[in-house]
């Protein structure tokens, strides 16, 4: 059974924001909501690195643990999804998430905070696969179409890899062996646990300070 994961190769990311644009366009994400964004570490310092960040679909997701209405669930592929009909927009998940993934659209005269929105690994939500209702609430269900997330498939430098954890880790490992550097994967250890328990996954990153 595939276990879906993201890897962002900081050696390759050129901060083009193609992944951000692909995500916004694919899912028609509203203004003010960014399911994915590019973060530059040590910005302005020689050797700065950029990484693309979104929900990592953690193995032991803290958002699931803190949700007071239990709106989250995990699919067989390890994708963490939520039911917007249950979400009350309290924001607890936002405080719990180490990646800042949960987003809250603001709308109306008083800027009311809406229901939480986040990366779905292009797997939609609990509505029928590919239905209009699913698209309206969660965006396109590319996994059910036999595709991988738009952000990863659109990445020009293939810095962002998405798919079965074993496969993407193997692709990344081959790269590291070829170039002989850049084995750090930012956020991998936080999201999926330590490599000793992750079946030969890449080494976790020494996480540098954010700019």
């Amino acid at each position: 059974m595939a276990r879906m994961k993201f890897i962002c190769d900081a050696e390759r990311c050129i901060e083009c924001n193609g992944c951000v644009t692909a995500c916004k366009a694919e899912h028609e994400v509203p203004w003010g909501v960014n399911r994915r964004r590019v973060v530059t570490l040590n910005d302005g310092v020689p050797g700065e690195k950029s990484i693309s960040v979104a929900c990592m679909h953690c193995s032991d997701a803290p958002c699931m643990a803190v949700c007071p209405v239990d709106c989250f669930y995990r699919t067989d592929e390890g994708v963490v999804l939520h039911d917007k009909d249950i979400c009350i927009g309290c924001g607890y998940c936002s405080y719990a998430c180490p990646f800042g993934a949960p987003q809250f659209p603001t709308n109306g005269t008083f800027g009311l905070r809406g229901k939480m929105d986040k990366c779905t690994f292009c797997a939609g939500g609990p509505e029928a696969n590919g239905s209009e209702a699913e698209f309206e609430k969660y965006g396109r269900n590319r996994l059910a179409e036999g595709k991988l997330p738009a952000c990863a498939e659109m990445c020009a430098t293939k810095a962002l890899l998405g798919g079965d954890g074993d496969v993407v880790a193997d692709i990344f490992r081959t790269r590291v062996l070829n170039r002989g550097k850049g084995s750090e994967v930012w956020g991998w250890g936080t999201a999926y646990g330590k490599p000793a328990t992750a079946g030969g996954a890449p080494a976790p990153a020494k996480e540098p300070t954010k700019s």
Partner: protein
Amino acid sequence: MKRALIVSAVLAAALGLVACGERSTGGKTPRKADSKVWQGTDNAYAAAGWKASDEAAWQEQMRVRAQSQNEYNRVR
């Protein structure tokens, strides 16, 4: 007669109090059940090369698709 009145008053009070009680949710979340991704969709955007509702075919499709991110397959 008086006894019957008392009993009916008690029953009426008990029935009235039912409305004040909290409804049990049975400890279950009302969250909807999601369908499996390998069941596919009816829309016209599905990728070719695999058959919907076939889990093994979907898994293979994911493996093939993921390898499209591996440029070493092209340059070597």
